[in-house]
């Protein structure tokens, strides 16, 4: 069975459509980040208390709210936990208290308060506390800082590796593509108002690596073809390379997407954010190799020609002669 035989699409010709598509999603994401939901931060970054409660019978959120108010916890947010689209009738709730109620000398106070509030105020059924996360303000800042550093170093490491294996422009094009992917993924979180936790950051770093992978496969082919197709223009070479690697690209993304989809559907609530990031990231990462990184190479090339420099993009350090 073979799906991608003899494909000959002019990818670069469609670059304005791609640009439009990317712009729409980027702008929508940015708009949401700056003016709508902002970047929803999980408890790891903003601090606070999260109490996951499992009830014996379907919980009544109004009664829970009443119990919290009676105990003076007016800022509590109460949310039903969904275990993804494939589980029905979840009986779990997560009760969140903002960081204001969490001082480092009494970190436990929030959890104890929630426990007491439910014990005295909620009569509908018995319950048990399944999980607690309390993050003090100092740790919140620390973790944010670490996440930022990790992302920065990742991008830097990739740039240097690609500079070493190819040419600087390849590295820059790939980093721009990855940046685009990260922006759209975070925008997706903002638009759907999902929280960004530590595991989500891990997913984002993974999709940075994954998007790089994808871009590298195309670049490798471009480099190979530049050596053999010396008389063709760069656009023709790039188009040809994309077409040649298309079957591999679609297949791999499809397969990885299948596994990540399985995670999203069956993996449970804890990995929800993580799998959502990967689902979005894999789709966008594949798209960006074709629609962002490759056109950037050609655009840079055209810019260099426009300024009177060499007409063909060097294939890489090996063919400098």
């Amino acid at each position, binding site marked *: 069975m073979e799906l991608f035989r003899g494909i000959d699409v002019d990818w670069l010709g469609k670059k304005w459509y791609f640009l439009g598509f990317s712009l729409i999603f980027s702008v929508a994401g940015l708009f949401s980040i700056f003016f709508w939901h902002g970047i929803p931060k999980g408890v790891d970054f903003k601090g606070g208390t999260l109490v996951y409660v499992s009830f014996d019978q379907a919980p009544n959120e109004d009664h829970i709210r009443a119990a919290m108010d009676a105990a003076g916890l007016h800022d509590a947010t109460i949310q039903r936990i969904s275990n993804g689209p494939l589980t029905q009738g979840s009986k779990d709730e997560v009760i969140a208290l903002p960081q204001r109620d969490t001082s480092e000398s009494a970190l436990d106070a929030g959890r104890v308060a929630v426990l007491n509030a439910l014990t005295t105020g909620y009569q509908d059924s018995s319950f048990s506390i399944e999980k607690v996360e309390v993050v003090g303000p*100092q740790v919140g800042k620390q973790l944010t800082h670490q*996440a930022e550093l990790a992302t920065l170093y990742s991008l830097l490491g990739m740039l240097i590796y690609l500079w070493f294996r190819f040419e600087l422009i390849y590295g820059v094009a790939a980093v721009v593509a990855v940046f685009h992917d990260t922006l759209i993924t975070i925008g997706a979180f903002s638009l759907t108002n999902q929280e960004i936790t530590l595991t989500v950051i*891990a997913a984002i770093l993974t999709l940075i690596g994954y998007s790089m992978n994808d871009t590298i496969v195309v670049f490798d082919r471009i480099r190979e073809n530049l050596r053999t197709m010396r008389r063709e223009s760069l656009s023709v070479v790039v188009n040809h390379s994309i077409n040649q690697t298309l079957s591999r690209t679609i297949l791999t993304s499809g397969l990885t997407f299948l596994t990540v989809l399985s995670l999203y559907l069956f993996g*449970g609530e804890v*990995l929800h954010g993580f799998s959502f990031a990967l689902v979005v990231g894999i789709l966008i990462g594949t798209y960006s190799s074709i629609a962002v990184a490759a056109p950037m190479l050609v655009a840079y090339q055209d810019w260099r020609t426009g300024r009177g420099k060499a007409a063909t993009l060097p294939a890489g350090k090996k063919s400098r002669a």
Partner: protein
Amino acid sequence: MRKNLTGKTVAILAILVVFVYGIFGLPHGLSGSALKQSIADRIHLGLDLRGGTHLVLQVMVNEAVASVTDNDVARIQADLQKASLTFGTVGKLDPTHPEIITVTGTAPDKTSDVRSLLESTYQNYDVSLNADNSWTLTMRHQAVLDIQSHAVTQSIETIRDRVDSLGVSEPVIQQYGLGDNQILVELPGVDDPARVREVIQSTSRLEIHAVTGGPFPTEADALQSVSGVLPPDEEMVHGNGTGEGPDQVWILKRVSVVAGNDFRDAEPSQDENGRPDITFNLTSVAGDTFYAFTSANVNKMMAIVLNNRVREAANIEQPIRDSGRITGGFSPEEAQNLSLTLRTGALPASLNTLEERSVGPSLGAASIRSGVIAAVAGMVAVMVFMLIYYRGAGINADLALFLNLVILLGFMGFTGSTLTLPGIAGVILTIGMGVDSNVLIFERIREELHLGKSAASAVDQGFAHAWVTIIDTHVTTIVSAAILFLFGTGPVRGFAVTLTFGLLANLFTAVFVSRVIFDSILERKERGTALSI
């Protein structure tokens, strides 16, 4: 050309056996539950899968520095007195800088004497004279750092002793973070973080003081009894005995007779009426001191002071050497906690909790279940697809994938790595990314076949061209994973570990193992028959 296929096949089978051993160890039996037990013994589960409590504690190291300088303040006073050098005050003026001591009011003509005394005895300090004839002693930076790091290591030891008493299996207590004096405590199977913190952070201080006056109903009354002036070596301490009854004021000698480290052992027990109390033993040195004190003060009162409140005032009926009993008013839990604190010694500084996470065991089990289901579903989907799309070569890919997972899990068993829920996600991701290598190779082989090359030559070319790309893609993902490992904590590290091991294993299986399988198929075929791909 035989290419030594037999040798390579044997090597692959040997590796399979080795890594299966890594997963299971030597299983006790072959039933489902025996195998599960073997896996559980080899592969450690993270807290998010096993259930347990995770705490990050900040050691308030400035308190440790402050108590050292407090001691030094007293010593400077004593030393200056002994050398007959007059002085006004010795103290720390700035509470936010416990490492600075200020001495005022020394005689201007004795400057050199004061300086030589201070500099020779207090070599951990930089001594400087100020314009207003006061002296500033600043503890040297290295000495401060030493005190701080000592406070952290001692806290870790004390916490370890206290945690041992909780009977937790495989606790993790270690320094944490990048040099911020933080301690990580992970206790699997314990899901009551309040009790844990109670036990770990209790800073109860028990002391025995000589009583010189009391009980009085108020401080005013107490002062009246000494004509309004409290002697410098005495202090007023409140207490209400065993907890019932009104607050009273006692006058005690400031310096304790025995305190803190003088207690060698303490156990909760019961008095004649069956109520909880504490029996204690003193160290032999402290025992001598106590004996001397009690002999000299028969029929006088001594006060047992707990956390700066008088707990109990008892008449000294006879000399006591080194064992005694503190009675009255304890709940069984209080007796237990206090005994533990006395036994394990005091914390050098107090601990603030920065982060606390706990997972109940049923949530942990549910997470394992969903993780495993997702992994199996993903793997089945991928394997089926490869069979449909690549036919015979699909079997090749599926075998390589299976071996990949065995090696990955075996690696984890051998290195004692911890499997977390994101770690399971890493396994799932390895499946997807791992099969990528096979796709790269197979697509290239198909291309070469379309160009008219023979089966053997197509396989050759396919592997040769794909190799470069495989290296590039694996290196970049491993770089991401390495950075995640460096900057991540617990669960995220688990993810980085499984992803890295998985990709390393994949380099082996997708290239070497797949090649061997292709070669053995080509061996058996006659020239000209098509390759099933």
